[in-house]
């Protein structure tokens, strides 16, 4: 007798329960695997990011070797440190396209403004949609631990009269030599990183720069006040969205594209208080901290929990502080 007939018309195969169990097992395995893969991927990205920063730190030293000083923090025409550093990053072709007698946004500089330099991009920053004609950047030079964006004003009618001069290695017209870094090049930050913004003031993103102007209670006179303001800031309020062009174009030497400050803790919202007071800081998509290249070329991963005095001490080149962390 045919066995098939003996069993009735049933066909051999998996039951629904068996299938569900297999699917559940696969789901559990995928659930375990995905975070592990993401962790490995982020570790690789962080390593790639620190490699970029290392390249740039070496480029700073090569520039110093050739010119006897570090490149300018930004020049009078608004061109960035990055623009001056290109030959040391083997980007001669782009360097030659830059007209250094024109402003950063002059039509004559449109071509280099759109040139993508891979070394300037952190792979952990997955925001890669940039306005046409611009190219992105995640790495910034250190202006120091003061609030003043420009140079100290001489007129006492200026709202920034009395604010201390920038004390980092890179600022407007800076020509810092390594011997000027009295705190020691291994104790002073040269560069760090920042996520790109969303390039749209109609969208609130934590990586943008928040424009607080002279809002009552939000115009800091000191770095400590800036820290307090940044701590309590409502980053979702679109009334504070004033600078979303964060991280592009790299050719522009600006507090939200190529320059950062050691005023507020890393990872805090970056803020601007026109006229002339800025507290953009370092941040990243790496977990709990940022990569920092010191002026001697060494790299550190600085946790967001770093004490504020230690972070500010890293920012100043001549403060005489000792970094204990």
């Amino acid at each position, binding site marked *: 007798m045919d066995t098939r007939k003996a069993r009735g018309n049933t066909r051999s195969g998996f039951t629904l329960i068996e299938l569900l169990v297999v699917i559940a097992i696969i789901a559990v395995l995928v659930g375990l695997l995905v975070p592990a893969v993401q962790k490995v991927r982020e570790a690789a990205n962080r390593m790639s990011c620190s490699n970029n920063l290392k390249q740039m730190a070496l480029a700073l030293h090569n520039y110093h070797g050739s010119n006897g000083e570090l490149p300018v923090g930004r020049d009078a025409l608004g061109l960035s440190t990055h623009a001056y550093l290109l030959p040391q990053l083997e980007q001669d072709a782009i360097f030659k396209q830059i007209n250094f007698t024109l402003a950063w946004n002059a039509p004559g500089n449109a071509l280099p403004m759109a040139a993508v330099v891979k070394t300037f991009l952190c792979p952990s920053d997955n925001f*890669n949609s940039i306005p046409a004609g611009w190219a992105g950047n995640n790495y910034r030079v250190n202006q120091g631990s003061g609030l003043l964006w420009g140079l100290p004003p001489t007129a006492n009618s200026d709202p920034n009269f009395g604010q201390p001069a920038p004390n980092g290695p890179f600022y407007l017209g800076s020509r810092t030599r390594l011997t000027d870094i009295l705190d020691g090049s291994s104790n002073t930050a040269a560069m760090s990183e920042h996520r790109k913004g969303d390039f*749209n003031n*109609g969208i609130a993103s934590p990586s943008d720069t928040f*424009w607080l*102007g*002279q*809002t009552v209670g939000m115009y800091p006179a000191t770095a400590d006040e800036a820290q307090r303001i940044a701590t309590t800031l409502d980053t979702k309020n679109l*009334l504070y969205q*004033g600078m979303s062009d964060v991280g592009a174009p790299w050719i522009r030497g600006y507090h939200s594209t190529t320059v950062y400050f050691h005023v507020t803790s890393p990872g805090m919202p970056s803020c601007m208080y026109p006229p002339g007071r800025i507290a953009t800081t370092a941040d990243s998509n790496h977990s709990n901290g940022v990569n920092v290249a010191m002026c001697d070329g060494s790299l550190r991963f600085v946790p967001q929990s770093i004490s504020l005095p230690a972070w500010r001490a890293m920012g100043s080149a001549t403060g005489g502080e000792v970094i204990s962390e």
Partner: protein
Amino acid sequence: MNNLRRAWLVPTMMALVGCGGQSTMDLATTPEESRATLTRSLEAWKGGISQKDLATGSPALFFQDDTYRRGTPLTSYAFEGEGKVVGSGMSYIVNLTLKGSGEKENKVQRVAYRVVTRPSLAVTREEGIP
């Protein structure tokens, strides 16, 4: 047809594996919308409407200008030329005539505004430009 399918496959796969690199962002406004939004902002300033009222109006308009926020009255304004695309928005140069305080004469200020209209209406005074 197969080639067309493959053409889609390459950028999709690149995006999935994270090799997308840099892509170009769409404009967040049009010349008409942006100019109308900026005009509405400046008319509001001229008419004494506060920044907060604009932000809670319908549709909400976020107008960022420290001179406006401080309450300096605007007596008139004039667009200088056509706007141009800057970043994801349009940028306009405007000559503002601001009322002088007390006996002081009115002051003319040449400023630039960046305007986006998507997803929200936002007008922002540009720092250091023109």
